[in-house]
């Protein structure tokens, strides 16, 4: 009974792989169910039936869906995401720049929001039922309730239009220094931080309070431990797994769910790319974006599960 951790982690990774396969299946067939014929849309209303038939053959559209799925998966494994229907550029080229942008924004938001949210959540739990706790709780509920487009629009209105401190559009601004980076990313990052932090604050507060009510924390109190010690040494290690899950769920939003923020700040991220792809019926691009979102989501959730496994002494 040495340690079950390696086998548990391995099985968790296997589950992730199986999930990814199922998801790829779902993504492919969901996109093929989209109404309208791709060849007709690409060639326009005036195209001759012969031209459309020719294009269909060239794009393998006349072959069975299952076969196309196999082609597609095989391509994915070789790093070939296919060619965009709309502008005949390899999907990989289209995505790479956008993905980097999205990851940059998500990374910056993570750096700001996770420490902020955890600190607020844990300290609120530590001073439970005090004025501080009430302020944090009310503020988070308030922030959850305000839709992100309102936050983003207000931010633009105040900081860009009236105060003129920050550029309204992130992308047009050239980033050449650290101060420049701050100016370009301040508003989208703050808006996203608002959106993702609230859930993390509430979950970490609840998880820590849950463990603070256990007999072993009472025991530590009766050993003379101070409040920070109670929370940091006794409660937090046992609350790690629900907190990790809350963080993972919140962060997964930063990949695919930021379309509104990207639109308002005209930020060229991957979510915007996908929405554009839907309007041009660019199937390979839609599929690739969807796969990236699912992959990121699975990565985060699996990471949270692994943290939960590692933090459980019973499995050591």
């Amino acid at each position, binding site marked *: 009974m040495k340690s079950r951790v390696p086998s548990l982690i391995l099985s968790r990774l296997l589950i992730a792989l199986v999930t990814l396969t199922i998801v790829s299946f779902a993504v492919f067939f969901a996109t093929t169910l989209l109404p309208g014929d791709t060849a007709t849309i690409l060639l326009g209303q005036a195209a001759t039936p012969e031209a459309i038939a020719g294009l269909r053959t060239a794009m393998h559209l006349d072959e069975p869906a299952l076969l196309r799925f196999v082609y597609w998966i095989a391509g994915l494994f070789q790093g070939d995401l296919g060619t965009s229907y709309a502008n005949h550029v390899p999907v990989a080229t289209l995505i790479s720049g956008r993905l980097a942008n999205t990851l940059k924004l998500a990374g910056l938001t993570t750096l700001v929001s996770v420490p902020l949210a955890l600190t607020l959540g844990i300290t609120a739990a530590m001073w439970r039922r005090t004025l501080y706790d009430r302020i944090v709780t009310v503020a988070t509920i308030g922030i959850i309730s305000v839709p992100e487009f309102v936050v983003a629009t207000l931010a633009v209105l105040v900081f860009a239009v009236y105060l003129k401190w920050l550029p309204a559009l992130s992308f047009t601004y050239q980033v050449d220094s650290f101060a420049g980076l701050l100016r370009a990313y301040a508003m989208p990052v703050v808006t996203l931080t608002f959106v993702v932090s609230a859930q993390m604050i509430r979950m970490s507060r609840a998880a820590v309070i849950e463990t603070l009510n*256990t007999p072993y924390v009472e025991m530590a*109190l009766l050993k003379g431990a101070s409040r920070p010690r109670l929370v940091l040494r006794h409660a937090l290690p046992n609350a790690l797994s629900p907190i990790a899950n809350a963080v993972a769920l919140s962060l997964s939003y930063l990949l695919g769910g930021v379309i509104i923020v990207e639109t308002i700040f005209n930020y060229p991220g991957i979510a915007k790319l996908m929405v554009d792809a839907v309007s041009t019926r660019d199937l390979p691009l839609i599929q690739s974006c969807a796969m990236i979102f699912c992959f990121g989501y699975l990565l985060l959730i699996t990471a949270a599960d692994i943290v939960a496994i590692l*933090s459980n002494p019973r499995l050591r």
Partner: protein
Amino acid sequence: MTNLVEIRGLTVEATTDSGRWIQILKGIDLDIAAGETVAFIGESGSGKTTAAMTLLGYARPGCRISGGTVRVDGRDMASLSEKERAALRGTTVAYVPQSAAAAFNPAATIMDQVIEVTRIHRLMPPDEARRRAVALFHALSLPDPDGIGDRYPHQVSGGQLQRLAAAMALIGDPKVVIFDEPTTALDVTTQVEVLRAFKAVTAKRRIACVYVSHDLAVVAQIADRIMVLRNGAVQETGSVDDILTRPTHPYTKELLHAFHPDTGGRSAPPVGDAAPLLEIKTLSAGYGPPQPNGQPLVLAVQGVSLQVKRGTNLGIIGESGCGKSTLARAIAGILPACKGDIQFDGRELWHSAGQRSREQLRDLQIVFQHADTALNPAKSIEDILGRPLTFYHGLRGKARDARVDALLDMVHLPRALRHRRPAELSGGQKQRVNFARALAAEPKLILCDEITSALDTVVAAAIIDLLKELQRELGLSYIFISHDLSVIEAICDEIIVMYRGQTVETIIPSARQQPQHPYSQLLFSSVPKLDPTWLDTLNSDADRMRVA
């Protein structure tokens, strides 16, 4: 001359759901000298734990110390600031919790938690603290004292954790230690070892102890004086001898009486009845996926045979994990046995309850230990009792109502309770409802699985009396499972001792038969007696047996 602990006019208040404060300790006075052990005794809800915790300057969330002084070593714990109290906790006053298993942080090693007091109060360098802890582990006769500290709490047994919790309390060299029901969750055989270890260590260091318990016999072994509490007020305080032999207060007398359950009051079992009601032959049952040989992975009951004659009672006794509850579940068919025969009323029963006929199910009822979890909290008592009436007897409407009333009468509950939900009843009342539900089926045999274990002595004694009375009236048979010998002796005609899934001995109490098997001897000798010298004079043969 001032005492180490002086409590004067102590009152504690608790807040109710409506936000009012009500007094739960009503003016307590007590002195404890250095090296003296005082026991707080009383039923659950009497305020004994609350009173003991005030010595730490602590009241559980929702409670507050509202008046009086609690002077410990010259300082009033009630009026100190939180920071000053924290400085005294662990160093002057230490606490040993009721459930050590819950009081250890699952995410830290035992050693880290045992020496945490020295780290918090900066008493000594960690290495010295570790050496001290190991010395304490030796003194508390823990197995593997040098290595046990590196383990996590879940890797250690309950009895060991309880002793480790004592080590955790003693490491800071406190002057007063509070033991909060430290052996209640343990088997009697383990309890003896733990009590011995506590007694030896505290006597050697001349530590004053407050020992909270509801078990008079345990208290008699360990205390110098006893304070009897009820409803937050002191009923009686006196030396152990006085309380045990010359109790003055009626409640104390009731407590003492409950300790000697009535063994009489039952009609003599019918003799010469040839056909047994229940006969079990080489029954095996267990848990886990079936193995290639057809047996489950863990075999909890191995080849048990027993007989219950009509109108008689069979007791099954053994320590936790010996398979006694599994046996009950196998007889009831909840956990189908993997091997063996169950004959009931002359007919062979299926192993699985799902295949038994409704009539067979009706004849054989089971009552579970925890009425709290066995009764659906969302249903009224009426619904709970009415369901088996409709299921087995097809009763509806007025007939059903009348029968529910009759059942409540039978278990001595007021009829007005029928509209309440389980959460609105006391522990004893819930157990009565739990039992009435089994009676509703009009069974021939009732399996009682530790039905008195979660109850106070006085309440448990009342339940036992009820069981006897119903047996007289309805001619029932019981299989009574318990780890408490006195309860079993009070009601059973025959006792089976189980150990590691097997029956080791059958004893007939009325024949004054002495146990023969080493394990039953150990079990019977481990049951605490009211005699204060019992623990000290307890035959050390028991220790030899333990090794064997």
